[in-house]
């Protein structure tokens, strides 16, 4: 089972050391190509003009913010059920990244909303549920650090992550279930994407770049956390 394979911290350290440079390099290459396509090699929209280019940051950040939360929720379940030590480290390392992506979504969405909708912010179901996602991430980080015992903090945060998971389908389907100012999905549709190929290419390139960046940072943060814990354990041993 993959789970047991990666549960061994030493094996994780060895493999992650090898793949980090590849994901890091991939991020840089994808970002360069993606930004070139987004800013230079894609047409303005028939309605929105050049404002559509905000989409190439906004949508990838949103996808990554959601993917990050799903990752944390799965790792939280693994941590609570199977007690794998690496699962806690994964949650703890991913949450601040999720905060970053969610702030990018909200900020770029606000900047995009003003010229297209005519407002920076409204309390519609999509915008509000994404704001709740930000608070879930912040709550997760606070709970992780709220206890003297690291394990208890991780456990409390894992429970919060699982409860908050209910927000993910709400974010995704809010635009279909209720009247919102935010438009429905363009890509994940039954009748195929309602976006021209010339705009889909930069969007997917940027999305891949964001995901690669997330994986790179996640692995680096997990490796750092492992090293910190080893140092603590060593100090403890030498002190006694």
């Amino acid at each position, binding site marked *: 089972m993959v789970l047991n394979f990666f549960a061994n911290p030493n094996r994780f350290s060895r493999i992650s050391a090898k793949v980090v440079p590849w994901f890091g390099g991939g991020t840089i290459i994808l970002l360069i190509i993606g930004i070139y396509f987004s800013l230079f090699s894609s*047409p303005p929209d028939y309605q929105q003009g050049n404002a*559509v280019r905000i989409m190439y940051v906004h949508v990838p950040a949103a996808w990554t913010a959601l993917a990050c939360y799903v990752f944390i929720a799965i790792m939280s379940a693994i941590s609570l059920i199977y007690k794998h030590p690496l699962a806690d480290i994964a949650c703890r390392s991913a949450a601040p990244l999720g905060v970053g992506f969610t702030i990018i979504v909200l900020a770029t969405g606000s900047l995009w909303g003003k010229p297209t*909708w*005519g407002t920076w912010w409204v309390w519609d179901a999509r915008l509000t549920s994404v704001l709740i996602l930000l608070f879930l991430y912040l709550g997760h980080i606070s709970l992780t650090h709220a206890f003297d015992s690291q394990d208890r903090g991780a456990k409390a945060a894992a429970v919060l992550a699982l409860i908050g998971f209910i927000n993910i389908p*709400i974010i995704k389907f809010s635009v279909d279930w*209720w009247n919102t*100012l935010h*438009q429905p*999905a*363009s890509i994940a549709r039954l009748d195929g994407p309602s976006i021209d190929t010339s705009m889909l290419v930069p969007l997917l390139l940027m999305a891949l770049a964001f995901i690669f960046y997330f994986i790179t940072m996640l692995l680096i943060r997990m490796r750092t956390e492992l090293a910190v814990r080893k140092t603590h354990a060593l100090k403890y041993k030498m002190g006694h």
Partner: protein
Amino acid sequence: MKRKHKRLLLVLVSLGLLGLGTAILLSAIEDNLVFFYTPSEIENKSIKNDQVFRIGGVVVNGTIKHSNSFSSFSLTDFRKTISVTFKGVLPDLFREGQGVIAEGSLKADGTFTATQVLAKHDETYMPKEVADKLKSSGLWKEKFSKNEYFN
């Protein structure tokens, strides 16, 4: 049953119950979750005159009029049409056939006085040349004539 199987069951059952509870809750407060009503929906809601709410629809062709700083236009959901008056600056995307959301209240004569107008843009993205080509070849899908636009 092993302990970890018990925990797995506990997590799954709790999540299932939580999901069920949330679904019931959300459907109960649905009226507060929608951002706007469509013109045909407001008939069924008991909305008092001067009560502030939002109305969403498509701007009917040929109904936009400007006089001084006032604008007036008609909003439709293809079942019912309502005329709207608004004083202020309209968003850039405001045009005929565009989905818009107006915030304001109903007057006694059945017209809607808006204090804010927002443009609702759809999920279609394409370059101008493609849009022109589709329109000239008659393949332009009149998405706004479909009820699907209002979910």
